């Protein structure tokens, strides 16, 4: 097994390198050696649960920035960033009408880096809506939805809707005038649908107007329901990119 070969260590540098990257503990964590040979570089991608979203090799056109502008990757990056800042925000926030607004105020004034966390979460959320829309435009103008990637385009449209819903449900949580009335306006639109509008609106906000029930519903959807759904569809989305032959390129 090449991964278990111990190179002969001669110089001090070699011995330090050996001690760092060929020791028992390192090998128990990373099955491949340090990725400085083509073989180990492929192994590191193939044997790492996070990196194995990638293939081990890609076509050289795909690393050109202008091929994708990294837009899909950026959307995923923002999703991860939103998850991290979101979890931190959950430590300080209670979704009750009595506490929500005060918690945000406290977060901004009493919590170290609290305001930075909230700002990051807010701007990343707007950023994700923008990158997802731009990703859709990139895929369209490149004809990357063409066979065999038809269904992945549909998955992408679902992810666009989920992104908008995630952002929309988060919008209510600060429980300020901006949040309250934006959600009132938004859910009134739902209510205007023929026949099913009113029941749907009632189910969404748990009453006839935005109140405590709406807050807890939006919170639950925002922090667990929609993220799980989005993560599931993302898994399908990424998996299908691999299954359908990688990124689109000229036939």
């Amino acid at each position, binding site marked *: 097994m090449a991964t278990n070969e111990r190179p002969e260590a001669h110089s001090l540098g070699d011995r330090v390198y050996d001690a760092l990257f060929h020791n028992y503990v390192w090998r128990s964590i990373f099955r491949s050696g340090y990725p400085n040979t083509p073989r180990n570089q492929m192994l590191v*991608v193939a044997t790492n649960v996070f*990196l194995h979203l990638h293939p081990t090799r890609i076509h050289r056109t795909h*690393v050109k920035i202008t091929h994708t502008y990294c837009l899909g990757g950026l959307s995923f990056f923002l999703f991860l960033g939103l998850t991290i800042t979101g979890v931190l925000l959950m430590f300080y926030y209670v979704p009750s009408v009595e506490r929500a607004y005060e918690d945000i105020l406290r977060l*901004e004034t009493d919590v170290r880096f609290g305001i930075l966390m909230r700002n990051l979460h807010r701007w990343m959320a707007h950023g994700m809506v923008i990158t997802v829309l731009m990703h859709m435009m990139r895929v369209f103008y*490149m004809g990357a939805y063409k066979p065999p990637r038809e269904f992945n*385009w549909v998955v992408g449209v679902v992810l666009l809707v989920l992104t*908008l819903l995630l952002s929309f449900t988060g919008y209510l949580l600060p429980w300020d005038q901006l949040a309250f009335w934006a959600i009132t*306006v938004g859910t009134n*639109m739902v209510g205007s649908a*023929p026949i099913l509008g009113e029941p749907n609106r009632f189910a969404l906000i748990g009453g006839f107007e935005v109140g405590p029930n709406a807050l807890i519903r939006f919170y639950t959807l925002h922090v667990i329901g929609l993220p799980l759904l989005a993560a599931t569809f993302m898994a399908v989305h990424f998996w299908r990119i691999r299954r359908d032959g990688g990124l689109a390129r000229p036939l």
Partner: protein
Amino acid sequence: MVTNAQENAVSPAVRARARRDRDEELLVWPDLVFIEFISAVLFTVTLTMLSIAINAPLLDRANPAVTPNPSKAPWYFLNLQELLLHMHPALAGVIVPTVALIALGAIPYFDQSNEGQGEWLSTPNAWKLTWIGSIVGTVVTLLLVLWDGSKHVVLWAMVTGNAESDWPKFLDWTRGARALQDNLPWPEALRNIPLGSKVLRTDLLGLPPIDLNVDIAAVMVEQLIPTGLMIGLPVLLSLVLHKTGIAQTRRDHMIAQFAGFIAVFVVLTLLGTAFRGQGMELLWPWEVKPPVS
């Protein structure tokens, strides 16, 4: 041995990809992982700087008794809120976005050819079609919104030096969509057709009666005209592009329609965000004041 069934399980395009040019390929580590890492660092730094510089908005505590004027949805729904000003709420708030999303999802099933995939705007007229779609979408949307906001009357008053109220009486019905309903001599019979008590006789089945009185003028202004325009104008665009030979394939038509859709989306979002002041009045961005309670 590859059986027929196995072969059919993979679509032709994937099979075509089977012969690989190893010379053309790079290793994901380090070539791609490096780019991903750098862009992640770049965006983390940029977003952190942005978050240090600009605070997320936080207004007063929510108060159901005090309605700010104007009350606006989040920016990515302001395109729909803009539509809401011009048509029936069911159309603007639910039917149009639903149809738009279904149409978006249907793109690959409408344009099934494999030609030009993976290349930026690869058909011969693609750039031209993108420009045409974007410009037509922008101009037509702006004209329709301005017309519905009676801005042609404002312009006329400015040019001729008259007051806006001097707009000729016999042209009052051209002030905007709503004026078609209010300022035309509709016969009373058409304004109140009792469908509920005369046509849909649910009471005969022992069910509660339906209260449904149809105002033809309102239906025309709120539903028929907007629907007609939203279907008719894109169809007209595709017809013209087809007749002139600029759009030849389904992909060509898709490009023009998609560009048009994006243009309309962007114009409506911008109008709703920056050009709507108190009472959702159409104003210049510098005239728009913060909401009042």
